[in-house]
């Protein structure tokens, strides 16, 4: 019969590399019984003996708070493994040895420590005396560099020796304060006469009971009865009162201290853990002031890159669509059909589709920034600012997601437990400019601001974000008050992006833009064309579009805009890109649009488009995640805010002579 080898360890310590090095291609992937946790098994043969290797889920401890931990713990507890190979990362010994102590505390004697990344530890000045470590921990320690395959044969040898009973171990067991030890002994004594003594290590049961482990409480209750268990739990409560802390934290903390004490005996740091280049970069990029300046700089360059490369391509595409329309028009005899296809669909959808290069380049630049690791740094800067404006810490992720699309961002507010926090985040969310609004901003910036497109786009984005923060501050102060909570972000490593992944991701995102142009924008274009062509052609003042726009014109004039802006904004509620397609249908070409508005009017339109009513999908998402009342409130306050900003910019701009 094959001997079973269990691989246990923290996540990302090289467990899978060791598993692959041991088993090669002889692997099988399935699920652990009853749960959807992946179970990897493989077979290897060494010195004439066959072994079944089971890769346990990566965990940091063996509590039962996650299904992964439960699976790993149950497997070890049942004694299912003939040898437990505990993979330990030599560059982060303390946290890895925490799991080691949890394993040894179970009373397991068949443990081998695979000390992986030993080469990396040496490079970082961490010198581990392996022999001493072995003596102190009381189990074999095999140094490894699994990526290079160094140490794998020694590990196999040790496994064989252990299964043959050629290695005698005396594992160290963590010790705690005298008071905790007294409690452990007290519980051990209470459990001694029960059947549990046969199947479990009583010290481990006692420690887990002290930690109020749900599984162990149930187990002990079955064997000890509720009266005895209540007495033990009461006792634990008294100890906690004396410590003024919960027992699980006391035990975990003392275990850490115990490990620290052990490590002093076999680990030496030969040089100071100096600041790496990555640390220095982080210090600059996440600095409250320099980080913010860097954020503006990076996004300015991003827009510059998008416009510099994208606008010439956009103009080319615009010419292609116009020429196609001109070529197609004489081919269609029916006047109505010609109007629908050429003036409606090609003019509307074409004007939106011509922005594909800009959208693709934006996603390409964002993908690069994400993969390099910059976006997480930018998020740290933003989170700090958001917190200052009274936004709850957890709302940061939904707000960051909103830069992509407001709908999933609204849905992501589900992660917020507090109802008030959820509402604030949901209400502020649509103010963050999504990528759909970027095409409108690009359209206006490209058509009206020949040399400062990037600055114009950046200013609209920055104003929108600033207003979102101000609204959040007002809401958290006067409408839905909440408490500020600290938030910790673990930054990913800086990486050179894989161009294949970046290109693939940019395309995945951009192709949705094309899909949207072929569905909702197409439908919108048909409706806009109909409204502008019936009952009479536009230009007479009698078309439905003109009549509709005329209703809002007096209000729009306060912002220096006309009925056409009113109609385009109305259709923009369905999808923001409809603002472009409406202008495309009304004016027919980009040159005509450029001649119809002043740069100030275009800037006001860009700002109002960014700030007014969210798209219909976002309104629906807010309603679904809260109720109609909050959805209606969002629409009303955003119209009010957009109008206020539009009127202000228009009046200040005209007063300044723009």
């Amino acid at each position, binding site marked *: 019969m094959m001997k079973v080898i269990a691989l246990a360890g923290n996540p990302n310590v090289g467990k899978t590399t060791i598993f692959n090095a041991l088993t090669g291609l002889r692997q099988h992937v399935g699920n652990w019984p009853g749960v959807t946790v992946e179970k990897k098994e493989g077979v290897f043969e060494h010195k004439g003996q066959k072994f079944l290797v089971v890769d346990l889920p990566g965990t*940091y*401890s063996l509590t039962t*708070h*996650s299904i992964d931990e439960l699976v790993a713990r149950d497997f070890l507890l049942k004694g299912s493994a003939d040898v437990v190979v505990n993979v330990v990362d030599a*560059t*982060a010994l*303390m*946290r890895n040895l*925490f799991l080691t102590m949890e394993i040894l505390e179970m009373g397991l004697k068949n443990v081998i420590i695979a000390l992986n990344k030993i080469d990396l530890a040496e490079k970082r000045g961490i010198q581990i005396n392996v022999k001493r470590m072995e003596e102190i921990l009381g189990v074999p320690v095999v140094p490894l560099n699994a990526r290079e395959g160094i140490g794998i044969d020694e590990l196999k040898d040790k496994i064989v020796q252990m299964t043959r009973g050629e290695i005698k171990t005396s594992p160290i067991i963590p010790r705690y304060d005298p008071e905790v030890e007294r409690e452990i002994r007290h519980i051990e004594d209470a459990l001694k006469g029960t059947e549990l003594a046969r199947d479990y290590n009583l010290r481990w049961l006692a420690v887990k009971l002290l930690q*109020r482990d749900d599984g162990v409480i149930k187990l002990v209750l079955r064997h000890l009865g509720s009266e005895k268990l209540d007495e033990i739990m009461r006792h634990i*409560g008294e100890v*906690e*009162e004396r410590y003024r*802390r*919960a027992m*699980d*934290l006391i035990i*975990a903390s003392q275990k*850490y201290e115990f490990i*620290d004490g052990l490590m002093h005996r076999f680990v030496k740091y030969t040089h100071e*853990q100096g600041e790496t280049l990555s640390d220095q970069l982080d210090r600059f990029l*996440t600095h409250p002031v320099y980080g913010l300046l860097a954020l503006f700089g990076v996004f300015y360059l991003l827009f510059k890159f998008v416009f510099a490369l994208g606008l010439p391509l956009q103009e080319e595409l615009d010419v292609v669509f116009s020429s196609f329309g001109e070529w197609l028009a004489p081919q269609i005899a029916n006047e109505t059909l010609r109007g629908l296809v050429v003036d409606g669909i090609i003019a509307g959808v074409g004007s939106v589709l011509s922005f594909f290069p800009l959208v693709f380049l934006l*996603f390409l630049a*964002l993908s690069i920034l*994400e993969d390099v690791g910059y*976006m*997480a740094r930018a*998020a740290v800067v933003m989170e700090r600012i958001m917190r200052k404006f009274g936004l709850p*810490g*957890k709302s940061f*992720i939904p707000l*960051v*997601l909103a830069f*992509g*699309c407001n*709908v*999933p961002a609204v*849905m*992501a507010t*589900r*992660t917020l437990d507090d109802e008030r926090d959820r509402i604030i985040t949901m209400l502020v969310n649509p103010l963050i400019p*999504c*990528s*759909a609004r970027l095409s409108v901003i690009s359209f206006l910036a490209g058509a009206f601001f020949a040399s400062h497109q990037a600055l114009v786009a950046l200013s609209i984005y920055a104003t929108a974000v600033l207003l979102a923060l101000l609204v959040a501050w007002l809401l958290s102060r006067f409408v839905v008050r909440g408490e500020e909570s*600290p*938030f*910790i*972000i*673990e*930054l990913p490593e800086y990486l050179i992006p894989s161009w294949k992944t970046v290109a693939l*991701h940019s395309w995945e*995102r951009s*192709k*949705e*833009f094309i*899909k*949207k142009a072929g569905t*909702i924008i197409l439908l919108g274009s048909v409706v806009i064309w109909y409204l502008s062509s019936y009952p009479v052609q536009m230009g007479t003042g009698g078309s439905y579009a003109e009549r509709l726009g005329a209703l809002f014109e007096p209000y729009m004039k306060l912002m220096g805009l006309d009925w056409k802006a009113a109609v385009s904004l109305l259709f923009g509620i369905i*999808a923001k890109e409809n603002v472009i397609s409406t202008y495309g249908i009304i004016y027919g070409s980009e040159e005509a649009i450029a001649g119809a508005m002043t740069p100030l009017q275009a800037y006001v339109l860009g700002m109002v488009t960014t700030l007014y009513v969210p798209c219909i*999908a976002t309104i629906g998402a807010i309603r679904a995640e809260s109720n109609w009342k909050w959805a209606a409130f969002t629409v009303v306050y955003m119209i009010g805010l957009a109008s206020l900003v539009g009127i202000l910019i228009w009046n200040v701009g005209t007063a300044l002579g723009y």
Partner: protein
Amino acid sequence: MLEKVLKLLEGGKGIDEIARELRVPKEEVVGAMEVLADLGYLERVESGDSCAACPLKSVCPGSCFRFKGRVYQPVDFRLGGGKGTFKP
């Protein structure tokens, strides 16, 4: 160290600052945070599955931001009646 890390996190300190203050590598601070998260003193904030799980995927531009960092938040906890029922 575990309790020191928790205290510093609750005080709003970042991973780098804690590593400097306790004179340990950043990896050890992150490890301590993971243990604290396992014990229920820190919450791992899920960033969601963004677009993949969105029912409106077919009509939206599919441009969700990929957030790559890991986010934690200290859990409001009091002895004798804190966050979870498993706590004292």
